[in-house]
């Protein structure tokens, strides 16, 4: 049995490539085309991919996870009920919450708690977004569209409750689109103290 040998011709160069000069002219022509297009061409034809960063910025995509904010109720208090879901879900363990009870005369007393301390260490945070997923009250969101501003001091990266409440969402609001039904409201779906059940 003879072994069949398939001879594959070595891809050679054409004469034009071997002479080298036409290829030089081609390469130079291409580079010059780019140069003239990007330097003297009309603004909309330029294909410059980089920007002057601090003066010009690119809008982050809509679902970009930026630094956190705590959403507010209509009266300005945090929506957070200190259920500790976010700090439990957090894989980086960067959320520290100290829950507190409302005063007995407060209408919310007995229904929910509030965070007396709410601190996020933005340097530990890995921006995974699990805290937002875990939150049952839509109280923590990452829709600010901002990245962490640089600083030389580590303490600046510990965001406390007031700081987190003071950051607006990308649309400028401190609230969320989801309605909040306070206990005592007619729209409140659950059991409450007055109505019983």
């Amino acid at each position, binding site marked *: 049995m003879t072994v069949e040998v398939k001879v594959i011709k070595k891809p050679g160069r054409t004469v034009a490539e071997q002479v080298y000069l036409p290829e030089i002219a081609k390469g130079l022509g291409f580079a010059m085309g*780019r140069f003239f297009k990007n*330097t003297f061409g009309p603004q909309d034809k330029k294909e*410059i991919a*980089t920007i002057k960063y601090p003066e010009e910025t690119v809008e982050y995509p809509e679902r970009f996870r930026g630094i956190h904010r705590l959403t507010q109720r209509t009266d300005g208090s945090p929506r957070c009920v200190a259920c500790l879901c976010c700090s439990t879900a957090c894989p980086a363990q960067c959320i520290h919450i100290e829950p507190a009870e409302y005063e007995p005369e407060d209408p919310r007393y007995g229904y929910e708690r509030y965070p007396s301390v709410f601190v996020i260490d933005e340097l530990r945070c890995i921006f995974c977004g699990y805290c937002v997923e875990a939150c049952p009250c839509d109280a923590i969101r990452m829709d600010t569209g901002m990245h962490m501003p640089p600083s030389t001091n580590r303490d600046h990266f510990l965001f406390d409750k007031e700081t987190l409440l003071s950051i607006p969402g990308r649309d400028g609001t401190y609230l969320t689109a989801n309605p909040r039904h306070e206990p005592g409201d007619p729209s409140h779906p659950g059991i409450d103290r007055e109505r019983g059940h």
Partner: protein
Amino acid sequence: MSTTFLVVSSLVKVLVVLLITVGAFAPILIWAERRQSAMIQDRLGPSRAAIVLPASALAFIDRARLPIWRLAALTGIVAIVALVTLTFVAIKGSNPLPVSTSALTTSLVGFAVASVLLRAGYGVHSMIVRNGGKIMLIGLLHPLADALKFIFKEDFVPPKADKLLFSAGPIIALIPTIAAFAVIPFASTLHWDYLNQVLPRTGEVAGPAVPMQVASINVGILFIFAIASTGIIGAAISGYASDNKYSLLGGIRAASQMVSYEVVLGLTLVPAFMVYASLRLEDMATWQYEHLWGVFIPPLTLASINFFVAAVAETKRVPFDLPEGESELVGGYLTEYSGMKFGMFFMGEFVEVVSLAALASVIFLGGWDVPFLFRDGFEFSLPFVAGSVSVPLVHWLVVAIQFVCFLFKIIVLIWFQLMIRWSLPRFRYDQLMDLCWKGLLPVSLLNILVVGAFILSGWLDGWVAFFEKLF
């Protein structure tokens, strides 16, 4: 011509040369090289170096924008009116207006320059306002930042290096490149007593004549070769003195490459001497002014291409940057250098680019010659058409236009060199030597033969006469 006048004019010329090479072209080249590569590669390039203005200055600049724009428009309109009037005078042949033609010309140039400068000022002001009070000037401050960095960086000398030679290397590499400018003419002879008059087109002019070059010496181009070959020593001894095997290899590579291409560089210019029948660069430029540019004489076209290739190789830049091949030799003979010593090598390289571009433009592209510009002004004529339009210009204006045109030719050649630098990949070392000894050298030698035959057979005279009849 008095001795004082000679000394003062020579000093002024030396200053102008230093200002052009070290002061203007070298820093701008450092910027242009990076900016141009960025434009080729769809990047923005260097633009971050900035001088930050206080808020009050920013407000002032913002307020000044509109007046500057109005002034620019006004001066532009005046210049256009002057231009229209001049055209009218030129077509009519005589001047019936109450203003003299020379006054019109002066005002045209003055107002046009003022308008352009004011418009540029408006652009700069707008840019500063747009950047929020930061003067960035499209990255032109980067050479300044570079220079500051070079000056304040540690001047490191390797412990076992040869201290004297290590320090002498950059100086020996930089000085010859600047010195080569001594014999390059920037413009035609300046007749000091007739600055504001229209000179006759031909004939001798009495009075002090200032040749627009630092030294008018008989050996001319040979001086450049002698000086330029000194640069090899700079690269070689800096490689040797660094006490580093990469430096040594780089120095050896640089020396052998430059020696090889020096030969080609000289031989490609021999046809030019034969045609122009002179070694003096000013005579070459004058010959081209009287007849035609060297690049349009067929054998010299080939010589000019060869010269250009050899010149790029002589500057040791991509695609011939084997001495610095960073993938093999770290940085070649520059490896151990830092601070201002490296800066001097850097500067020397860029000044060499400028001086070789200047040389190429003087020998092959007519030097200071502007098409249709004669000693008495412009005279536009078309081939096969009898009539011509002449615009008489005063002497200083003619010289100024020639000077600007010479700079423009240098800039175009430099731009082309940078284009080559960013388009072509590096050669292998044997390919580099093959190109020199088996390619360019035989072609240049043959070209000398061809030019000899061209001159002896009378074809050169015929070609020149044909060209002169055409225009």
